[in-house]
């Protein structure tokens, strides 16, 4: 029996975005759970993890970078971020994409040959291995730290932390609303395609898929225009006059100051020993 083809490019993209939206919900749930980092002020986590990312990118010794990576994994573990999830969402994809970029360096970097590819006589050099190792490990470390932030800090708190770092209030408000309504529109698009699927028999040909994609894009565009107009009216109805006022309710506790000092010390130490 012939296997039924999966939907077209647009349908697969929408499905992918929908799955990403569902994963965002997982992240929100994890961020609200118990764990070492979940209990800290969002500003400390944004500043501390960013400092570690900068430190990792400044490292010039592979072992020091590996130590920052190990620290990132340890932070994930004590914050109850599943290691399997890190492997599936960060380590393997980062290895595949960065590995593809780093692979030529294995052969093109001049140095002592360590291994020859059978049949091709291409030499993998020690220096090439080090260069590729730097690139892959740097990306793995930065991505792990970023995911630790996402899985330990609710999105609303990240936005408030950005405000505390003097990011303009209008920018933060637009960012928050953009994420909110992108999720809504992705869900709408997903429902449209599900609805089409429930009424259709067999796969559409290429022209049919293009027609469906164009029609769906038109409906979504129209819906987003209507939505944006209605949201503006809803904001006006509650007193919005062009200047956004938001509430700052973050408060630093002693343990937050302690954690901030710890992050600063670790980042400084990583830069110092790895220089």
């Amino acid at each position, binding site marked *: 029996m012939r296997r039924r083809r999966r939907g077209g490019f647009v349908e697969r993209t929408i499905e992918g975005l929908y799955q990403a939206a569902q994963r965002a*919900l997982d992240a929100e749930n994890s961020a609200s759970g118990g764990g070492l980092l979940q209990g800290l002020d969002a500003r400390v986590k944004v500043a501390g993890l960013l400092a570690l990312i900068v430190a990792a990118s400044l490292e010039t010794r592979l072992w020091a970078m590996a130590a920052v990576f190990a620290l990132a994994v340890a932070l994930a573990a004590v914050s109850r971020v599943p290691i399997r999830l890190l492997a599936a969402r960060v380590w393997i994809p980062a290895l595949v994409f960065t590995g593809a970029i780093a692979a030529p360096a294995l052969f093109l970097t001049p140095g002592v040959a360590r291994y020859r590819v059978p049949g091709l006589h291409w030499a993998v050099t020690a220096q090439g291995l080090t260069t590729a190792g730097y690139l892959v490990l740097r990306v793995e470390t930065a991505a792990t730290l970023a995911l630790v932030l996402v899985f330990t800090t609710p999105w609303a708190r990240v936005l408030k932390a950005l405000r505390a770092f003097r990011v303009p209030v209008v920018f933060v408000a637009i960012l*928050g609303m953009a994420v909110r309504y992108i999720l*809504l529109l992705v869900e709408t698009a997903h429902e449209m395609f599900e609805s089409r699927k429930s009424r259709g028999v067999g796969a559409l040909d290429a022209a049919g898929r293009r027609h469906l994609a164009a029609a769906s894009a038109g409906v979504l565009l129209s819906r987003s225009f209507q939505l944006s107009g209605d949201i503006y009216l*809803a904001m006006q109805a509650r*007193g919005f*006059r062009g200047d956004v*006022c*938001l509430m*700052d309710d973050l408060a630093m506790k002693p343990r937050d100051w302690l954690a901030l000092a710890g992050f600063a010390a670790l980042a400084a130490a990583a830069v110092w020993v790895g220089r």
Partner: protein
Amino acid sequence: MTLYEIERLSYRYDRLTAIDGLSLSIAEGSRVALVGANGSGKSTLLRILDGLSFGQEGAVRFRGEALTEERFADDAFAFSFRRQVGLVFQDADVQLFNPTVFDEVAFGPLQLGLPGREVRDLVSEALERFGVANLKDRVPHRLSGGEKKRVALASVLVMEPEVLLLDEPTAALDPRSQSRMIDLLVEWGGGNKSVITATHNLADLEDIADRCIVLAGGRIAAEGAPEEILGDRELLESANLIHAHRHRHRSGEVHSHPHVHSGEAERGE
């Protein structure tokens, strides 16, 4: 005393006429239901009453003040009006645009310039009153339909408006959420504040209104007390608010009744 005075108001969307020469007066402290089928002009009229849209013809006055675009350009008038009048939209997703429920409820008071501590107290009280305190850190997008409606209502009532405009407050809610929403509306302000509700849910009329205005094609088709309107089958049929429902009895006999779809309750004869 008159709350709203509307004179020969017309509103058109391109070539479609939503409100057609409508004249109406609404008294202070009254509970009015704008009843009509889809497309009868209810939502447009509510937006005009909230100063969000303005008719191409005619006039609307709120407590004697004309509601015009020029008038809303004056910050003092706009702030004063927004404090007095609150609108709950039909689609709660439109109204819930903040990252958390707490921020959502705090949005209005903050825009009105209230100090942070006062806003915090008001928000906490509103969250408790509407039974959504446990949701305060949740993302509004992930709430159920009933929770979204309650948060939307809290986000408006936190500003303690004197006049509440509601667009289909029980639409798309399950029976229990509908009942809870009606209870909240009935209890709000001790029943002394002005409430104008657009609805096509006839089962709620007697609970939420003392006076009903039936709209059809952007005009007033009838007005009166809820029991008068509900008792006029011909009017309800002509306004597309009820329809004949055919069914077959065991004996094989087929006949029809006037029939209303209105959540859990169905009013028939």
